[in-house]
């Protein structure tokens, strides 16, 4: 007990106090006991009913386990069949509309929305670059397409060989009898005189060039 020997007298007194008569008065104990026994009966009855219910549920579970599994499988299969049949019937009834919808999706041009980048004016004071009109470049015809059925115009030998002259296209006559050599035949352009200026310096070179060309 690990008590100091001086404390043994106190412990001896406490032991005597333990033996003192502190009994439960019978006028209190009897009704308390009856009340307790009534509670015991109530709880025991309720516990018995609960146990009986649990046993019934357990036995019911065991007996109907196999039948419930079969029934649930049948119900599940019937539901799947019904859903498939309903989907098929609906698709058959509205087949035209479904086709229209599919066509509208397939034929509809795809429009891609492109948002332009926001214009940011970073340097408003910069000089504006003016781009002059581009020089017109006449495209060189690479090939002359001849309409089908049109007879090909041939000079020379063709004229000699063809008997039906009306059907052939008339070829362009050679200018001045010169076949392709046009050197020196181009008319000289008329010079434009600037107003108020005689054009001494610049025209010297041009005159020299012209003189050389004329020669």
């Amino acid at each position, binding site marked *: 007990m690990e*008590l100091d020997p001086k*404390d043994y*007298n106190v412990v001896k007194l*406490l032991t005597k106090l333990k033996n003192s008569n*502190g009994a439960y008065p019978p006028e209190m104990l009897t009704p308390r006991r009856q009340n307790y026994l009534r509670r015991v009966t109530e*709880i025991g009855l309720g516990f018995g009913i609960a146990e009986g219910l649990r046993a019934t549920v357990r036995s019911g579970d065991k007996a109907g386990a196999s039948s419930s599994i079969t029934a649930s499988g049948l119900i599940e299969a019937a539901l799947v069949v019904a859903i498939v049949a309903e989907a098929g019937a609906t698709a058959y009834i509205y087949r035209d509309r479904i086709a229209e919808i599919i066509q509208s999706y397939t034929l509809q041009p795809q429009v891609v929305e492109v948002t332009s980048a926001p214009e940011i004016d970073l340097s408003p004071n910069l000089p504006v670059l003016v781009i002059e009109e581009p020089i017109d470049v006449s495209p060189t015809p690479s090939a002359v397409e001849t309409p089908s059925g049109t007879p090909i115009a041939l000079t020379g030998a063709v004229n000699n060989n063809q008997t039906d002259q009306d059907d052939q296209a008339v070829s362009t006559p050679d200018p001045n009898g010169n076949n392709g050599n046009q050197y020196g035949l181009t008319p000289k352009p008329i010079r434009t005189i600037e107003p108020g200026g005689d054009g001494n310096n610049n025209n010297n070179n041009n005159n020299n060039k012209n003189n050389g060309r004329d020669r």
Partner: protein
Amino acid sequence: MKDGVALLKAAQKLDEEALTAIFDQFAPAIYKYTLRLCHDSIVADNIVGDVFAQLLEQFAAGKGPRTNLRSYLYQTAYHLVVDRSRANQHTAPLEVAVGTYEKGQPAPTQSQIEERVIMEALISAMNSELTDDQRHVIILRFLEDFSLKETAEIIGKEVNNIKVIQNRGIAKLRKVLGLQLEEI
């Protein structure tokens, strides 16, 4: 009569006979213990009713004590007493226990009168000089014969702490009863 373990197992199955035996065996002891703590016979009687009502509810819920039924009942009673003392600071004297101490006895002798004086001084010192923990530990250890371990379980403290509380309580009682103890 069934032993403690068999009685507890039968009570867990809500066996009526076992539950009745438990009440008959422990109700008077719980009443005495509660009376020593709260000093009121009516309160002690109510606490006994609450203790066994809680026991029935625990058994019905599949809970309750598994090993030490006696310690469990005292622990429940202790908590109920503490709850009630917190609710209303009850300061009734402990003379209830002393009054029953000499009830039904013939005229006391000189030694019996001296012993009674010492006992009253002891009870008074327990009520006035000891702290709640010291009083509870001393009651459980020396009046209810619980071990240190059981006392620690009931009060909810460590065994070493119970030892310290017990020794300090005994030392305080010895100091208060110093003169009377020399006369024994």
